[in-house]
């Protein structure tokens, strides 16, 4: 393990484990967030766009149905 | 057309003159020196009245650190800037980096005996990072001010 005698040594970081590992954990979190968030946003965007198309189709259908129903009532 | 250019010139010259004044003032300020913590020399020259809270910054003089023979967790050492030494007394836990020959910043006041009673001790790291084995070489070359 490079400059460490053992893996346990590496984990304990010469007694500074809390500091070193929490700093690295936060850093990893920052990296993760910066990748995860745009990727999720991208997914959401595609989902929304597809849903928007569906909704538009549905909107047209509902309008048609509603109008047919009304015309049916009128006659 | 002409008026537009004239207006712009007025504003530009206003800004230029202003910036010049600002630069002059900044240079003057830097000349006067604006310090936030005081070196032992400044303290010795009486720039800080006694009884007043302030911050002192310097090096821990080699060989000046006493702790074992004192009560509890009290420590005493000399803060120095290679010219003047100021005795410092502190009770509490010291940071890791607090070593003889290293930088230190202390909050506190000068008591009646001329001792700086610190309420907080902070260790100041220098600009050098090196593995332990290079230190010997370094000390031999006398690269740092060794107080």
């Amino acid at each position, binding site marked *: 393990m490079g400059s460490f005698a053992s893996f346990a040594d590496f984990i304990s970081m010469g007694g500074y484990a809390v500091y070193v590992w929490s700093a690295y954990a936060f850093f990893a979190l920052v990296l993760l967030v910066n990748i995860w968030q745009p990727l999720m946003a991208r997914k959401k965007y595609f989902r929304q766009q597809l849903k928007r198309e569906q*909704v*538009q189709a*549905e*909107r*047209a259908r*509902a*309008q048609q149905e*509603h109008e047919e129903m009304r015309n049916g009532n009128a006659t | 057309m002409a008026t537009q250019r004239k207006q712009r010139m007025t504003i530009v010259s206003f800004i230029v003159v202003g910036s010049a004044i600002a630069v002059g003032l900044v240079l003057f300020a830097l000349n006067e020196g604006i310090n936030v913590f005081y070196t032992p020399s400044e303290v010795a020259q009486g720039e800080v009245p006694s009884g007043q809270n302030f911050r002192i910054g310097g090096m821990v003089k080699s060989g000046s650190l006493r702790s074992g023979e004192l009560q509890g967790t009290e420590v005493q050492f000399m803060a120095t800037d290679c010219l003047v030494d100021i005795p410092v007394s502190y009770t509490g836990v010291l940071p890791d980096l607090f070593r003889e020959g290293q930088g230190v910043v202390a909050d506190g006041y000068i008591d009646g005996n001329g001792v700086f009673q610190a309420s907080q001790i902070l260790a100041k790291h220098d600009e050098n990072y090196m593995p332990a084995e290079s230190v010997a070489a370094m000390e031999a070359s006398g690269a740092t001010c060794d107080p």
Partner: protein
Amino acid sequence: MLGVKDLYCERDDRVLFRNLGFETAAGDIWQIQGSNGSGKTTLLRILCGLNDEYQGEIHWNGQALHKVRADFHRQLFYLGHAPAINKTLTPRENLRWFCASRGLDKTDEIKQALNSFKLYGYDDLPCYQLSAGQQRRVSLARLKLSAAPLWIVDEPFTALDKAGVAELEAFLESHADNGGTVILTTHHSLNMKSPVKTIDLDALATQVAA
């Protein structure tokens, strides 16, 4: 239903109306007329109990209004100049809160109410994405959900296009036909089959001046 006797109101030292009196009945449609600033909105708000700077009597089913306020509010639907639509919420959420605030248990009918105002598929879009006319429609969709017999609506036709105006007129009329009462103001001329009773505040004002 709602009756008014000897109503007097002044605002900023200007008399808006004096000796105003009328009595609505089930099936009535009342239109309050008058030029800008003549006090139409003020009158409607007085009738609702939102404004109490008046003198005179207002009674509800024969009882003084302030004694039967809770009952009156249960029977009243009021719609003011502003649409009372929160722009960050969706139409569905807006109407759901409306139902809750009126003690109605009609969350299932919300979609239908929106559809009947031609808001097909708009129920889950935040309202700020809707045009002014569509927002007005969301606001009006509440009429469908409300069970109140008395409707007091202030310029309900603003921001609606021609077709919307016609539909809303028909809807108001059908409410009156079913035994409800409508009190409204509008600057455009109504086009209804049933008789519309009018109160002209301008005429009242000239009467005052005379």
